[in-house]
């Protein structure tokens, strides 16, 4: 396949665990059974998500690619997760390298970090009460999360995209209302099938109705 110059495609929907809509791909077909992806971007959570500068063989999967996240709004991300009483403010950026082994995608040493500071507020009465009754550390955590002002968030992710992913988040900051604003370091080790979590119907709230019907059709068959 060969085409003159850069070709621009719009992509209505890609279901990548999280449905991505209104994407744009800028491609070139140099005529050597490959396509060159100059850029691929979707608007997502107030920022963009995508990849750039990848040569993809037309007859097989690429061995690796990197997904770039830029300017993701923490408030929008929390809105997608639809966790009651959870609020967040701040901006996240990062890179998620994906390698393919036997056709299966694996996230390898992804890094996501905050740009500047922000806040996390979790004020679910029931959950906070349960944490308080779980011990002193959990009590401090519940109190800290009531109004946590972070200075840095650093996250890493590893694991199969379709299987159990291990994530670690280091969140540094303080709660000005707790221990005179003493510094707190929150280290969270997270494991689980994130793809299934992201596929949950709550994510679909942000989609236009016509696309939502299509996605819910396929998700509903699980």
């Amino acid at each position, binding site marked *: 396949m060969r085409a003159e110059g850069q070709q621009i495609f719009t992509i209505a929907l890609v279901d990548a665990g999280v449905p991505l809509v209104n994407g744009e791909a800028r491609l070139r077909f140099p005529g050597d059974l490959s396509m060159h992806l100059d850029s691929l971007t979707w608007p997502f959570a107030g920022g963009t998500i995508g990849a750039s500068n990848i040569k993809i063989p037309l007859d097989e999967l690429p061995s690796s690619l990197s997904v770039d996240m830029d300017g993701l709004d923490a408030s929008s991300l929390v809105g997608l997760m639809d966790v009651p009483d959870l609020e967040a403010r701040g901006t996240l950026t990062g890179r998620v390298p994906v390698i393919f082994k036997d056709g299966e995608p694996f996230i390898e040493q992804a890094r996501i970090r905050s740009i500047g500071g922000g806040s996390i507020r979790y004020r679910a009465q029931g959950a906070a009460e349960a944490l308080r009754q779980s011990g002193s550390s959990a009590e401090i*955590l519940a109190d800290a999360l009531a109004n946590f002002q972070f200075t840095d968030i650093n996250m890493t992710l590893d694991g199969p995209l379709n299987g159990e992913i291990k994530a670690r988040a280091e969140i540094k900051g303080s709660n000005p209302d707790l221990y005179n604003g*003493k*510094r707190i370091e929150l280290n969270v080790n997270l*494991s*689980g*099938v*994130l793809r299934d979590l992201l596929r*949950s119907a709550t994510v679909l709230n942000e989609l236009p109705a016509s696309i939502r019907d299509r996605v819910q059709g396929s998700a509903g068959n*699980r």
Partner: protein
Amino acid sequence: MSYRSFPVCRTIIPVFLSTMIGLAACTPTMKVEAPDKPIVINLNVKIEHEVRVKVENDLDKALSSNPNLF
């Protein structure tokens, strides 16, 4: 007559003064400060999404068999 006339005074007063100066120099100061180290909270979370799917499926079945439930 000056105090230097008394040999005892000539010895005791300098010793007393030097002891007081020494004590003043060694007076301990106590300062209460919160430790500089941050509070570190480690948290392990395992996402058990299957539980939620199961509950949703069970709820679907219950609603299907009892359409007038709500």
